[in-house]
């Protein structure tokens, strides 16, 4: 049995005093947490609660106004907010991945599935067509897309397939941290389940850490180890996912949990 112990090793990501303001309006404020290797953290809250702003600040898509986003590189925590843009872009092509809610934002719609998956490899210097294609086919298989679709463009794919393709495209370079913005949003319930199962398996097999923004509490219950609840740009509650959902402490979390229709 392999040693799954993560206690004793340092965090993969450490966020301190993160804030983003839109003029006088607060995007998010005072956000601080540690994320350890292999952990999946959910960020929940209603529209406008600042969860997407926070995710974009963490992933380097938005420049925060205050605070640090420290990422582990070879045992050293490096501030990704102040690092040079080339370094940050390199990080987002190697150690980081970002799965958009709308697959078309994360895919090149006029490029074949194989080309979409292969892009990150080619970006890192892969120059052997056969090897790139082989890896693309392998990854399509892992996200349950048949090999004979490798040359089809995502425009010919269903919503669920596109989302799986986006995941393959992101994970092909073996990132350590994946940011996901409503990864199951807009998909049919049955397609969602398939995607959730797939994500769980990949997270486990690859030892991925992930930060998932969603408003769907059922999704976080199944995917996330930990939960962060946001309201009006502030983190109002954090904890183990099942604990936050079953024994919510904050007024807003209690409202959120009690508003969910039970199935």
């Amino acid at each position: 049995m392999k040693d799954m112990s993560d206690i004793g090793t340092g965090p993969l990501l450490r966020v301190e005093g993160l804030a983003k303001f839109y003029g006088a309006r607060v995007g998010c404020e005072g956000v601080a947490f540690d994320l350890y290797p292999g952990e999946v953290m959910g960020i929940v809250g209603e529209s406008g609660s600042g969860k997407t702003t926070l995710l974009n600040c963490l992933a380097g898509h938005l420049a925060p106004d205050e605070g640090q986003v420290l990422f582990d590189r070879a045992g050293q925590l490096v501030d990704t907010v102040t690092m040079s843009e080339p370094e940050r872009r390199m990080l987002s092509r190697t150690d980081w991945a970002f799965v958009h809610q709308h697959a078309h934002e994360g895919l090149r719609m006029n490029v074949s599935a194989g080309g979409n998956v292969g892009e990150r490899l080619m970006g890192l210097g892969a120059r052997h067509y056969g090897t790139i294609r082989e890896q693309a086919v392998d990854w399509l298989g892992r996200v349950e897309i048949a090999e004979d679709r490798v040359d089809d463009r995502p425009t010919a794919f269903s919503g669920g397939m596109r989302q799986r393709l986006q995941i393959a495209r992101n994970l092909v370079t073996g990132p350590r941290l994946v940011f996901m913005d409503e990864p199951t949003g807009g998909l049919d319930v049955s397609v969602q389940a398939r995607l959730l199962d797939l994500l769980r398996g990949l997270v486990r097999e690859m030892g991925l850490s992930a930060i998932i923004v969603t408003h769907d509490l059922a999704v976080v219950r199944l995917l996330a180890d930990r939960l962060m609840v946001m309201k009006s740009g502030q983190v109002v509650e954090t904890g183990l996912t099942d604990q936050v959902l079953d024994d919510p402490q904050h007024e807003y979390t209690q409202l959120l949990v009690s508003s969910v229709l039970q199935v």
Partner: protein
Amino acid sequence: MSEYNFAYLDEQTKRMIRRALLKALAIPGYQVPFASREMPMPYGWGTGGVQISAAILVPEDRFKVIDQGADDTTNAVSIRRFFEKVAEVETTEKTAEATVIQTRHRIPERDLTEGQVLVYQVPIPEPLRFLEPSEVETRKMHALEEYGLMHVKLYEDIARHGEIATSYAYPVKVEGRYVMDPSPIPKFDNPKLEMAGIQLFGAGREQRIYAIPPHTQVVSLDFEDYPFQRMKAPQCCDLCGAGESYLDEVITDDAGGRMYVCSDTDFCRERREAGHVGALGVAEDAA
């Protein structure tokens, strides 16, 4: 002639273009923005090349213009006449004798020598645009040398056609740094981008100038298992018999008749004058 300044453009504009040219030569393959002027011809007719030629021509120059290798097509003729009129420079059809050659879509067959300048007309200077429409993003990609996308284009070619089917405007990497669109020259011409002459590229509508200084390394992008291949029709020129020149296919009748001729008209003429005769050609002295 007193109506026009020498070579049509005013001296301030020429100075601005020359500064852009110097910068472009200093950073091979880098696209330098410049304030493209209205020219007395529509965009797409070589206004970028014309502005560069206007900025570098001096009265002592001998000027040659080719369009797809030919000196006698409309575009080439009208640009040559334009400069005959506004710059009163000597013009020629002979590659060897020209000091400045403006070209559309070809590099002359004859190797250019030191002191010669080749000016390209460029429709779309950005090689990454095919896959990334955002100019902000492509400039960043150039700045950070993020060129994976260029190979995605070649990957798509192989996936769809079984080989790199891009046959013109084939992307190159200049001096190990900038990826560049060599304008829509056939990829047959790509190896000639490493030359003794100076190469200047002008895109009028897109307001970009870039350059390759003499003897600069220019590598055509490819894959290890799908290496770059020069490509031409397997035939020989039907007029001069040349087997190594780039050929145009000419339809000769409505019954499927066709012939292959050198796209470089000056090269073909020179060979015929030297006594070479192709399958359908007529010996010069008999003519």
